């Protein structure tokens, strides 16, 4: 188990970061090339002012009609995404690994706060799971990729919470947590998690079409 942990926090971590960063660049560049080749006329209509105005509405809770339709989903979605980024980036355990082996350090959240944020992510994953199983219109559009990404995120945060609370064998739980996190990073460019990369562009395009062609709001 020591050897696996060593591999997971060492070479596999760098591999995961490399695949995530290089894969993301590759996906963005190839999507740009495809858009220019197939839809050059549409690309010409991209308008930054419309895109930015629309994005500002969509990143504000209840700032768009779509967010007002289903308040419960809106609240969980915002909480989920904020906690998903804040908890791991400012988690002491993660910073300590960088500090110990590379001498890089930055401010950490108090353990209790990070723990609460992580539990929020796990709870949100449970809610999304329930929605995909029980709400017919959501179930209808659910594909295998959706189960995969939900499982990756849910497992990463659940094992993190369990390891922090020292539930189960700590070396096993921590190793499992690191491996799940790495799988999640690698999955970002190549699964539906790529909405992290493309979401802003899709919204920007829709906003441009609505703004400069239809003269309408898209929020």
């Amino acid at each position, binding site marked *: 188990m*020591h050897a696996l*942990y060593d591999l997971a926090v060492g070479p596999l971590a760098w591999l995961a970061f490399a695949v995530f960063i290089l894969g993301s660049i590759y996906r963005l560049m190839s999507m740009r090339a495809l858009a220019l080749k197939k839809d050059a006329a549409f690309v010409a209509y991209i308008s930054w002012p419309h895109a930015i105005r629309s994005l500002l509405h969509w990143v504000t809770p209840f700032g768009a009609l779509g967010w007002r339709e289903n308040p419960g989903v809106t609240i969980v979605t915002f909480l989920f995404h904020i906690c998903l980024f804040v908890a791991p980036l400012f988690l002491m*355990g993660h910073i300590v690994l960088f500090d110990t*082996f590379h001498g890089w350090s930055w401010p950490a959240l108090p353990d209790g706060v990070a723990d609460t944020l992580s539990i929020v992510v796990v709870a949100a994953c449970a809610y999304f799971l329930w929605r995909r199983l029980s709400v017919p219109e959501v179930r209808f559009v659910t594909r295998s990729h959706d189960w995969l990404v939900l499982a990756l995120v849910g497992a990463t945060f659940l094992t993190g919470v369990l390891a922090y609370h020292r539930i189960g064998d700590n070396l096993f739980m921590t190793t499992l947590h690191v491996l799940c996190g790495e799988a999640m990073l690698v999955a970002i460019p190549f699964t539906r998690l790529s909405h992290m990369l493309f979401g802003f562009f899709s919204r920007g395009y829709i906003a441009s079409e609505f703004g400069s062609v239809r003269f309408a709001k898209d929020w």
Partner: protein
Amino acid sequence: MKRLPFTRLLLPALAVLLLTASGAFAQQDMTHVPTEAFKKLTRPPAAFAHDAHNEKAGLTDCTACHHGEKDGKRDPASDTAGIPCADCHAVAAKAGKTPLERAFHLQCMGCHLTQKKGPVTCGDCHKPAAK
């Protein structure tokens, strides 16, 4: 002189006090990595019974941990046993120096990873005190 009896009494008393106090911090009684230098603890102190650890690990060479420094690098040739780690490793170290927390983490985790033995995760060292 009137002050003489006072000195005569006080000095042995101080000596006894110091000996008792140092006894409490002696390595054979050590249960945790010393944390006095840290202003605030964010996790429970890392469990570490000095003598039991070394017996289990088969460690007889003190410099395996109590190393010195030469040209800004770790010097395994000089034995610094008895000198508190925090004397050289300041909690807020200057650039190029190893701060205390990193020194502890590197010392324990680094060796345990190389030896493939001993705790390496957060929760296996930083355990709440047994009730």
